[in-house]
């Protein structure tokens, strides 16, 4: 058997750890993550509080675990939503072609003019800051990314012989799209989704840090960091753990995505070396 690429292996392990932690938090965390107990504040790590407690006496480890589940949920919803809309638009463009294709692609160009942060800022200004708005903003920036990839990959498949054969056999373009094109562009879509998952985790953390995402008391790595920042002189350790969690999760999905791409598209991996 061929050796797995290193990035796939490391990424897979990190992602596994993060997902297990998120799943475990659904069943049980060492303490109630939101339980405040002022008399227990600023504990150093000990046997009862494995990573210590924060300024309100809440258990850090439990908060980190609960936050991991939220982070995964946000990234999953945002990437699924933006990814499926984008993929459908890309398929639509590729299937119909002509001015519809031109229109969809020009709109994709315009989507690139809005980083998630700007979009989240607009939504927060109009509707007030909330996690839903953060998810919508992250989903929105995924639409043009997936539309481009879906269209480019689909256009390649349309030129293959077996698609020409299906056309000759009298299959309609829509039927061909769903029975032949979509299954064959899934690999690049899934690779991109893994990478965008990492981007979404990073975006959620940044938006929550800035107060545009998860609102208290919802646990979030980004929000934990913004609270910790006010206490840097008192308890700098509080600003370490949430950041490490973000890095592990983002690195994990990023490496996994790179690894999957190396496997599914060997041409790229040769160039990258």
């Amino acid at each position, binding site marked *: 058997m061929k050796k797995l690429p290193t990035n796939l292996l490391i990424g897979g392990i990190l992602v596994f750890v993060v997902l297990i932690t998120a799943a475990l938090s659904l069943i049980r965390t060492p303490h109630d993550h939101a339980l405040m107990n002022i008399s227990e504040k600023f504990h150093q790590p000990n046997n009862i509080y494995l990573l210590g407690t924060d300024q309100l006496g809440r258990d850090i480890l439990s908060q980190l675990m609960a936050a991991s589940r939220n982070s995964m949920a946000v990234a999953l919803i945002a990437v699924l939503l933006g990814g499926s809309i984008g993929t459908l638009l890309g398929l639509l463009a590729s299937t119909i072609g002509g001015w519809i294709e031109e229109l969809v692609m*020009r709109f994709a*160009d*315009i989507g*690139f*003019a*809005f*980083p998630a*942060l*700007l*979009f989240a*800022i*607009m*939504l*927060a*200004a*109009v*509707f007030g*800051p909330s996690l839903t708005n953060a998810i919508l903003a992250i989903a929105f920036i995924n639409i043009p990314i997936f539309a481009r990839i879906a269209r480019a990959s689909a256009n390649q498949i349309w030129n293959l012989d077996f698609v020409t054969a299906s056309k000759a056999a009298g299959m309609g373009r829509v039927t061909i799209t769903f029975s032949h094109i979509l299954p064959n562009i899934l690999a690049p879509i899934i690779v991109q989704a893994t990478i965008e998952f*990492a981007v979404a985790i*990073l975006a959620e*953390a*940044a938006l929550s*840090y*800035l*107060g*545009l995402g998860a609102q208290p008391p919802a646990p979030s790595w*980004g929000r934990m*960091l913004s609270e*910790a*920042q006010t206490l*840097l*002189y008192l308890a*700098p350790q509080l*600003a*370490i753990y*949430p*950041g490490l969690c*973000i*890095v592990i999760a*983002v*690195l994990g999905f*990023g*490496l996994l995505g790179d690894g999957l791409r190396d496997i599914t598209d060997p041409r790229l991996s040769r*160039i*990258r070396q």
Partner: protein
Amino acid sequence: MAYFLLRRTIGFVLTLLTVSVVVFAVMNVLPGDPALTILGLEASDDAINALRVKLGLNEPVFTRYINWVLNALNGDFGESHSFGVPVSGLILERISMTVSLAVFGMLLTIVIALSLGVGAAANHRKFGDWGVMFFSQLGIAVPAFWLSILLVILFAVKLRWLPPGGFPGWGDPLLAIKSLILPTIALALVQSAVLARVTRSSALEVMRLDYIRTAKASGFSRKRILWRHVLPNALVPIVTIVGMQFAAVVTGTIVIENVFYLPGLGRLIFQSIANRDLPTVQALVMMFAVIVVTANFIVDLLYSVIDPRLRERN
């Protein structure tokens, strides 16, 4: 060339127009009354009506959009609701902060990334190369705001060399520069991770070519070959990413200003959100979007300067 320029310029203007429609639509047409958003649910009907008249909300949407665009082109972004002064004045007061941060950040990004990238390519598959690859992999995963906090813990809390945040103004240039050091590093380190990787792979591609072998055989020094022969020809992909990163750096300043409490446009956006100051938010979002679109446009034009072959293809 003229045709190419014309095509790109028309595309650029169309994109700007569409972006302005999107910004206007999100801020004005989505369900909800801006006057109600600004004043809050407890406001009296009279107050809401007065504000509606002042903001021109009773006019048709189309008229309001045209007015907004025409006024903005003349430098008039309306009046800030929370500050009670013209938005353009607020922007002018703060723009030097944001521009200096973005320019310093971008320069440092390019310096770090080109040195690391070319250095890694020169030491391909050796220790230095792996180090740079590790740095860039990590840099992509580290959020800029966490890196900022770590820098503050190290240089402000532990070592006490630099201030943890805030900006004293340019009256004392030394202190001003000191308070910009950490924000600039935080902005640049994360961005240079991506750029170093691109520089490395682009330089590696060029180093395989025959003329580099010829240059080596002619006895040019390694340094001269790297910086004079390899780097200029590796620039096309690097410029693409620099352009994309300029946009990222500019929006990155929004985050960094909030981490370090720097009085720039990024802070202003967040103050305006908290104050429900919609005209100010709308003007600032549009401004940042214009910068992003313009950066992409300039990259497009730069391509054809660096690599004339790309012009022919269009």
